[in-house]
């Protein structure tokens, strides 16, 4: 893919393109991301993304850990969708080791992962509002509801951020007694909050004027750039791993895959907003049909040894395709552990999407990718 950049032009009025270094410490880069913008006045003629400030060896470190210890590292890759990433890893280990988790554990996982998707998208709307210049109002709206979700997660796992709750073969412990009722409560209030967020942002004239038609992505480009998740679906492709390659028990639930039409920034908002409702729909179905029973597979050893082999497991995380590649040589530690971060692939299309736009639009294009820098740099 060749990106057209403007050559330095010759004219009577001699103007200079200046380099503006946005980040690594900048309010709009969602962490320690840095992009060097070459601007001609307000127009961005080139963009150079610089990543790696958050690299912690999150793929190598687990190779020295017991299979169950690795779960914590997945909480820390995508720290806004911890259950989704944990889900991916434990499914990968189960696939490799041939463990069948009990029904109830599968339901718990799906419920928590879907609520986590809502929480992650709420975070997106809050941060995106700030990017586009809303003075913290969307943040407050989004965080009010995210807070109730975090309270629910705290009741289940005892943690508010690094849950470390899923285990190969099941989940760590059972849900609290009144979980079903509490969960319904949370869902109701969150869906009301999502409606308010919808009213605050989606019909707002300024949001429409800013986001409609901004940096449209064609489906072909989206595939070539390796986009996934809402970024891909906004272009009109209904690709969702929960449907395309159903893992866990997703084939039992009714849900729709919202898609956009043009792949512009506004479509990405619409898709994410609708996904929250669809996730709530899945959770309600799962709560209806969740069986009682054990939450951990029988007969697992204290030290988990996984037979030699390799596996690639992918799930639909809120940001797109989150994948784990594991190679085992039969020991109690993974021999190779590789993570495919959705943010990383989506971010790599930034330059192509951003060049030629205004500085302020580049900020919201970056915001619309919904990156988590810990997942990009790992």
């Amino acid at each position, binding site marked *: 893919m060749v990106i057209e950049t403007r050559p330095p032009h010759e004219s009577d009025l001699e103007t200079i393109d200046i380099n503006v270094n946005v980040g690594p410490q900048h309010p*709009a880069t969602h962490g320690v991301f840095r992009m060097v913008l070459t601007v001609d006045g*307000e127009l961005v003629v080139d963009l150079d993304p610089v990543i790696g400030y958050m690299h912690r060896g999150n793929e190598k470190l687990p190779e020295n850990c017991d299979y169950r210890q690795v779960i914590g590292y997945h909480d820390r890759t995508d720290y806004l969708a911890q259950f989704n990433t944990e889900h991916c890893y434990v499914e990968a280990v189960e696939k490799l080791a041939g463990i069948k988790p009990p029904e109830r554990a599968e339901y718990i996982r799906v419920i928590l992962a879907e609520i986590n998707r809502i929480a992650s998208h709420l975070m997106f709307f809050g941060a995106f509002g700030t990017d*586009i210049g809303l003075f913290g109002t969307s943040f407050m709206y989004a965080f009010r509801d995210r807070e109730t979700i975090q309270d629910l997660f705290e009741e289940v796992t005892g943690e508010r951020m690094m849950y470390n709750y899923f285990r190969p073969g099941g989940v760590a412990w059972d849900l609290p007694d009144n979980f079903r009722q509490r969960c319904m409560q949370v869902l109701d209030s969150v869906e009301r909050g999502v409606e308010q967020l919808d009213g605050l942002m989606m019909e*707002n004239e300024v949001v429409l*004027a800013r986001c409609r038609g901004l940096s449209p992505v064609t489906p072909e480009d989206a595939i070539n750039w390796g986009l996934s998740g809402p970024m891909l679906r906004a272009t009109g492709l209904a690709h969702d791993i929960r449907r*395309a390659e159903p893992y866990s028990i997703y084939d039992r639930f009714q849900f729709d895959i919202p898609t956009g039409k043009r792949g512009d920034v506004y479509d990405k908002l619409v*898709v994410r907003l609708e996904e929250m409702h669809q996730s709530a729909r899945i959770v309600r179905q799962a709560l209806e049909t969740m069986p009682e029973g054990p939450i951990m597979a029988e007969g697992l050893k204290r030290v988990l040894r996984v037979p030699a082999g390799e596996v690639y497991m992918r799930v639909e995380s809120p940001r797109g395709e989150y994948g784990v590649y594991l190679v085992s040589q039969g020991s109690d530690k993974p021999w190779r552990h590789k993570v495919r971060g959705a943010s990383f692939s989506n971010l790599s299309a930034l330059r192509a999407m951003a060049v030629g736009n205004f*500085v302020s639009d580049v900020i919201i294009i970056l915001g619309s990718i919904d990156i988590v820098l810990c997942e990009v740099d790992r």
Partner: protein
Amino acid sequence: MSLVLISHNPWLESLARLAIIALLVPVTVIILTWVERKVIGRLQMRLGPMRVGPYGTLQGVADTIKLLTKEDVRPQTADRWVFELAPFVIVVPVFMAVVAIPFTADLFIKNLTLGLFYFVAVSGLSIVGFVMAGWGSDNKYALLGGVRAAAQLISYEIPLVMAILAVAMLSQSLNLAVIVGAQEDTPNIAYQSLAFIIFAIAGLAELYRQPFDIPVAESEVVGGPFVEYSGIRWSMFQLGEFVNLVLISILGSLIFLGGWQWPWSVFDASVPVAAQVAMMAVKTGTFIFFFMWMRASLPRLRIDQMMSFCWQLLLPFAFLQIIINGLVLVYDWPNEILIPLSGAAAAGAVYLTYRAARATGVRYQPGYQTVGSVL
């Protein structure tokens, strides 16, 4: 009669009046910072400041003390004098503008015949301060912000002045006291609704508040021209911004809402001073609340949208208002005819804005796919 000062020496009296401004204005600003945080807090379902004093009322004082005791940092590569003088260049014109503003019929510093014109001229000077701060900081964010500020403030000054001019045409005076006096029966907002809308929007842009906070956009240029400032110099920018907020609000209530006049002649001939002050406070407060409300609920426009909105929509409509006024004045039509004319034009302007915002298409329902992947 003016501010009741018992001094026959004009120099002493002038000094005393200026001292009153210098004392009163910062206090107002300290209160307003608390009000703004409280109002925006409530709009965002927060409580706002609650810790310092009852309901956080002393928050402004605490902030001031913090700002005054902070280190005043200057980047080594900054252009020393330009950098250090910029805050003054912003604050001094703002304070100069306060001089010409009558607060009630009897409370003013100086009643100028050309008061309105003076106000416009002086408040335009602050732009130099933004450019100085932006250029002198030797920071690219500041430079971008300074250029944005200059472009925006100069552009929006034109519709603002045009809207003010429309009122001056109707009142046949540039003296603010006379303009208020002329609104005894009907405030100008009825006759000049188009000019009022233009004034409110252009005022919002002159105050660089959302959706026009492009020069100081936090998520883009990180505070724009102010990015390198700290401590007292930064607080001077803040002071200038808030005094400007008050000034624009007072000006709006003077020339459009009838100033200290009570509606429906509640008090017959003479309105008591306390009632005048109360009326002014209510009208000014309405404006200030409007500006704060916008801040909490609107995102930021892009710079080209901001510019084309000004030049393609506000300015032609400002001219339209002036032409309408001119027709009414030349042909001696009754003023009442302005109500439907200006109202219709205002409705047209609002409709065009609405359409422009949705020109790129309205919201649609996302497509739903229940089948599997297409990949």
